[in-house]
């Protein structure tokens, strides 16, 4: 338990991850589904950022010419988060475009309704 309190950032991140996952599975509204997806991605970034942090050190931008590992936090997770954010922006834009097109053709954002309408269309 104490370990969990020490790792509280990671704990928060994994709880957020679960919440996002649940949203993605359970929400019927497509926009909310993709908000869930974004929560999930953000949780992973929080996790990575927490993993990169080292107590008492500063951001990895060289100041005063100090080039000592003891002085800076781990730069790798920051880089991964940067890459991850761009990927998630792209995915979100793409999925929202899909949602908008669906709304235009079916007039609803409810996934189940859209699915049943599409099924009926197909049977005809």
């Amino acid at each position: 338990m104490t370990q969990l309190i020490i790792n509280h950032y990671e704990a928060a991140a994994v709880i957020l991850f679960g919440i996002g996952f649940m949203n993605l599975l359970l929400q019927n509204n497509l926009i909310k589904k993709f908000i869930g997806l974004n929560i999930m991605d953000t949780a992973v970034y929080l996790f990575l950022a927490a993993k990169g942090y080292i107590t008492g050190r500063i951001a990895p931008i060289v100041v005063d010419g100090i080039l000592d590992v003891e002085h800076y936090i781990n730069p790798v997770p920051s880089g991964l988060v940067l890459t991850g954010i761009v990927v998630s922006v792209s995915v979100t834009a793409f999925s929202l475009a899909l949602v908008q097109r669906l709304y235009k053709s079916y007039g609803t954002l409810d996934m189940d309704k859209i699915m049943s309408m599409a099924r009926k269309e197909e049977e005809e």
Partner: protein
Amino acid sequence: MNNTSQNTNPKENNCTWKRFVAWVNGEEALTLPKHCISEKVEKSEKSKVRKNWEETAELRQKIYRILSIVICLSIIVMLLITVKELPPFGSSTNPASNEVVERYIESGLEETGAVNIVAGMILDYRAFDTFGESAVLFLAVMCVVILMRRDSNNISAEEDQEIAEDEEFEKEDSNIILKQIAAFIVPLIFLFGIYVILNGHLSPGGGFSGGAIVGAGLILYSIAFGHEKVRTFFTFRTFTKISVSCLLTYCAAKGYSFFTGANHLHSIIPKGTPGNILSSGLILPLNICVGMIVACTMYGFYALFTKGDI
């Protein structure tokens, strides 16, 4: 399978045979309820199946919900137990602080010329990932163009009218406060965005964040002064030209750098003095390219989502 039961009962045999023939002809699936098929029964049978399917929809929904809640909760619990076991937060001895980080920090300045170690890492040490990332962005904007740019599939008279009304409204509307503030603030936003892009290797920021700021400025401009005004200098053609040529430059520059690096050839790109604005080899031009792509992309998303064109 079906032929085995052929000589049990003449009537049933006949029925099975009919079903078999129907199935061979692809008229009926084999596993549907066991009914003799005549032309009429077939149809009602189908609608019955569909009805059943619809009736059970609620039940299936319930099962699905319960299952997903259970799965999600178990994922959370499992991850919490995992987190308990992970190396402690903020410790300097966890496995991630190894020789990789050591070299990034201790030799990063010398090897990449970037004061911002993260920029040096993503644009030089691990540049392939970052190239992939730009490709994702490019792909996403192309997909949005496929989906949203108006064509014969997604155009409707209603929508045309709506857009026309919007434009009419924009022309008449003289939102003086927005226009005045935007006229003052948009240049500042651009300036700040460009500053962030150009200083990507020296300070926090870089192509992506700076590009997003410039893109936000463009969006504000478009909201305040109307879409038509932006179109005078930024059309779909300019959009494609800028983003494609920037990405091509990126691709060529990184291709050259990978090629020389992997084959141990001499690279003609100078590193410069770390700390100067013109330093750190390819990182500055790459940041500029990424910045322009991102600015175009952000505005492109906005314009395509609202107007269906850039």
